[in-house]
């Protein structure tokens, strides 16, 4: 096998094994770490996670494709998750999404090296709608005219989701 987890990731996984009766429950953590280290969960990454946790690749594939935060193809460094669910919709969430799409030249679901634009379901920030989350950074009560500033900020301060993996 050509791919390997870093020593740091391996030691994180070993700490987690102690907290569960088998290795299988560590799969979400392992997939988050794998996406951090390899950028996406292509087939050989799925195989690596399976080998590491003594699980079949089919099992790992089944889990990885169930959860929306895992990606099978490369994405941007910063994922911009823009909520358009009801609380955000009622206060202009779709206008905010459109402003990001225009500013970045990306439609929802598309990526370049720097950014992925994701139309997100409710982010549990309804009291500050519309809400946008990028890694550990929240942008709250967002208006379309703030989007230029947010994008410039993220260009010089990327917030990859892997910062917490």
């Amino acid at each position, binding site marked *: 096998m050509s791919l390997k987890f870093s020593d740091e990731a391996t030691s994180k996984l070993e700490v987690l094994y102690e907290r569960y009766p088998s290795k299988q429950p560590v799969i979400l953590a392992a997939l988050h770490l794998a996406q951090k280290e390899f950028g996406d969960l292509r087939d050989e990454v799925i195989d690596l996670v399976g080998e590491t946790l003594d699980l079949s690749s089919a099992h790992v594939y089944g889990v990885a494709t169930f959860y929306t935060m895992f990606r099978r193809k490369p994405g941007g460094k910063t994922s911009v998750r823009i909520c358009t*669910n009801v609380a955000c919709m009622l206060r202009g969430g779709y206008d905010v999404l459109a402003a990001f799409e225009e500013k970045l030249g990306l439609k929802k679901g598309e990526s370049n090296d720097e950014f992925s634009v994701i139309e997100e379901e409710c982010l549990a920030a309804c009291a500050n709608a519309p809400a946008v989350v990028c890694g550990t950074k929240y942008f709250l009560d967002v208006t379309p005219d703030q989007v230029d500033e947010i994008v410039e900020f993220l260009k010089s301060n990327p917030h990859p989701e892997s910062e917490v993996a």
Partner: protein
Amino acid sequence: MPAEIGTVLVTRRFGDEENKKITSYEAQGGYKVARAAMVKTREEIVDEVKASNLRGRGGAGFPTGLKWSFVPKDATDVHLVVNCDESEPGTCKDRELVYWDPHLLIEGMIIAAHALGAVHNYIYIRGEMMREYAVLVKAVEEAYARGYLGEKIMGSGKQACHITVHRGAGAYICGEETALLNSLEGLRGQPRLKPPFPAIKGLFGKPTVVNNVETIMNIPFIVEKGGQWFADLGVGRSGGTRTVCVSGHVEKPGVYELPMTITFRELINDICGGVWKGRKFKGLIPGGTSMPPLGESEIDVPVEFDALVTDERIKPVEVTEGVNFDMGGGRELRTMAGSGGIVVFDDQTDVVALTSRIMGFYHHESCGQCTPCREGTGWMDKICKRLANGEGKVGDVELLGNIANGIAGNTICALGEAAAWPMMGFLTKFRSEFLARETVGKADGNEGEAA
């Protein structure tokens, strides 16, 4: 004597970044209640929680003490799992609660774990809550370093209590307790058939209690001040305060901890500054988008759990005009308090578009396991979209009611109801607006208001 406005328990440390540090929490008396609870018996604590009338704050409002008492008395290897997968649209309290006061959650878990005889305990946090995950991980590490968690906690010499923060990866369905358990076990997050209930056979096949974040954060107050004190803060069978999240078209949206007795109208006008931009109220969603909405004539009802189920000022949900939806045995459905996510909409709101967005959500989030939900949410999504886009067909409204009625009660988990109830609820309260969108195939050629 019910609580007055200003009585706050779980939200009292909101707003100050210092508060989430263990030193600050300890300086305010933190972890003293947990230490004192270690010498109480399991039964004493469970009885106190039963007496408190604490009801689950995740959505169903099930009595917490009763849930705990379902765990067999002689059980070993019990698990406590805290559900922090908050994803119900309109709900934003748990995210704020763990961010501002993570140690209150940990202290509540230590007490609950003691009462349940649980050693290995988990907090399942939603994948998208990356900032809050970092806060929780740090707080748990602090609690281990101080000896509140670990093998022999608080000098007890015998009791062990472990907490592991388990991060999800994006799936609304994992907020359903058995889907959450499957996800925790390293599987796809699909719900399990019940029975067996988690209290008998849950995580890793062992007796398990799954409680919401806010529910557990109330435990230290109950154990410190007594179940009766907590029950007296509430009303009827609902103890304590109610943390609501108000969003949408109000002047001051926010997370507010309030008396159970406050009505929706008081909440909007006195707490939230009224409907925004001087507009008029049209309707609200009372407890997350899975709950049937309320119209103008129905908001003088308090936010308390039982009131929303039984108050006759709330019109029962219909399948079609004049035919009430049957929840089983002829029981009517009005609405429910749900997760406390209150979404207010003004008189300029297109309710058809709003409903369409809700149906799009449940279609996206159906796990695909049960046919009525997998197919039915897709059909409702498709039909709502065409109604909203001015391409609605004659008969669509009746079809929507029939589809929703066919989903409810016929699925493994409550996601089926979560989609069907608001569908029928919006049709019941705003039927004429839906009918006005049935433009295709109409004899008089009325094009309707397309947008």
